[in-house]
C-alpha cells in the first residue's frame, strides 16, 4: 500500500517538474555510485519452438535493454511490472524501436519456451525470453544483477516462487544504468525513458 502512495507522490512530483523544463528532470529509478556490470553474463535465449541462441546482457548499439526476472504463473508483480512497461512504451514514442525487453524466467521447469515466449509477447513486441534449467547459470546471472530467486514445492503440488522484483535498464556496454524498484509504476518508467532516450 505504501508503494502505491509512493508512486502516486512520484507521479505528482513529475507533473510538477514537467511544466518547468524537461531536460533537468531527475530519474525516478535508482542509480548506483558503482553501477552493476552485467555485460559479461550470457544465457540461452529461446524462441517459441524452443530453439536456443546465446544472449549477452548488453543492449544493441543505440538501444537500451530492459531486464526483469519473473515467471508466467505470477499473478501480481510480474503482470503489474510488464503492464506498466507496456503503458510507458505506449506513451513514449519510439520505445518499441529503442528498447528491447528481456525476461529471465525464475521458474524454468514450468516456463517452457512455448509458454514463455507468447506470454511475454502479450505485453511487448519481440521480447527476449531467457531460460535455463542450469541452476548454477541462473544463479550466476541473478548474482550479477544482485538479484535472487527461490522455488519451494509443497507436498500438495503447490509451487511457491520468490524473486527479486526490480527491473533493470542496461546500456550497450552492459552496465545497469537505472534500476526500477517494484512500484515505480508506468509514470516513473515513462519519466525515465524520456530522459534516457535523450542520451541515445
Amino acid at each position, binding site marked *: *500500500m505504501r*508503494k*502505491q502512495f509512493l508512486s502516486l507522490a512520484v507521479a505528482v512530483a513529475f507533473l510538477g517538474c514537467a511544466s518547468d523544463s524537461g531536460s533537468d528532470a531527475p530519474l525516478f529509478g535508482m542509480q548506483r555510485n558503482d553501477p552493476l556490470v552485467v555485460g559479461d553474463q550470457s544465457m540461452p535465449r529461446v524462441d517459441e519452438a524452443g530453439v536456443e541462441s546465446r544472449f549477452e546482457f548488453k543492449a544493441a548499439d543505440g538501444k537500451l535493454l530492459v531486464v526483469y526476472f519473473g515467471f*508466467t*504463473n*505470477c*499473478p*501480481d*508483480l510480474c*503482470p*503489474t511490472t510488464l*503492464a*506498466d512497461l*507496456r*503503458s510507458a512504451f505506449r506513451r513514449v514514442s519510439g520505445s518499441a524501436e529503442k528498447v528491447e525487453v528481456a525476461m529471465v524466467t525464475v521458474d524454468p521447469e514450468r516456463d517452457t519456451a512455448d*509458454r*514463455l515466449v*507468447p*506470454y511475454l509477447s*502479450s*505485453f511487448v513486441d519481440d521480447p527476449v525470453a531467457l531460460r535455463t534449467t542450469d541452476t548454477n547459470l541462473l544463479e550466476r546471472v541473478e548474482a550479477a544483477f544482485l538479484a*535472487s*530467486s*527461490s522455488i519451494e514445492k509443497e507436498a500438495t503440488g503447490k509451487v*511457491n*516462487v*520468490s*524473486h*527479486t*522484483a526490480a527491473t533493470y535498464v542496461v546500456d550497450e556496454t552492459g552496465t545497469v544504468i537505472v534500476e526500477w524498484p*517494484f*512500484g515505480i509504476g*508506468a509514470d516513473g518508467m515513462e519519466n525515465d525513458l524520456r530522459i534516457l532516450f535523450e542520451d541515445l
Partner: protein
Amino acid sequence: MKKKSIIAVVASATLVLAACGGDDASTDTSTADTTMTDDTTTAGDLTAAGEIVVEGAWARTSPMEATMGAAYMKITSPIDDELVSASVDSAISMETQIHETVENEAGEMAMQEVASIPLVAGEVFELAPGGYHVMLMGLSAPLEVGTSIDITLTMKSGATATVTAEVSEDAPSM
C-alpha cells in the same frame, strides 16, 4: 470510469449487534429491530447499519499462457470485521484465495495466502498490486478486456457482498 458499487449487507440481527458491540444488549436489539427492515437489503439505503462498500474493483487481463489472475478493489466495511474469503464462479477459476505479496529476508518478493484481512469500521482497505489481491487460480480462459468477473466476498461476521470486477489492462484511473 470510476465505478462505485454499493452492496447491501446480507443483514442479520447478529451483524448489527456486532456493529454495536460493547453497548447495552437490549439497546442493540431495539436498534436491530428498527433498522432490519426490508430497506436494508437495497443499495439505496445508507442507514447506520450500513453496507459493505466496494469501489474500483478490477482484474488484470491475463495472457493466454497464464493460469493465474489477480483482482483488486477498495473495501469499506460498516463494522469492524474481517474479510475471510473470496470466491468466483468455478467456470472462471478453479480456486480463489486472498493473497499478500511480501518481501522475505533475502529481499525477494513472494506471495502468501492470508487467512483474513482485518477491516476497521468505516476505513477503506485497498487491495492493490504489490500488496493484497484476490488470486484467481487455475483460470479456465484468459481474462479479456470488456469482460467482468463477479466476486463474492465473505466476512467473518457472515456478511457477504458480490462485486463486479471489470477486466482491464491497467488499474482504472482515479
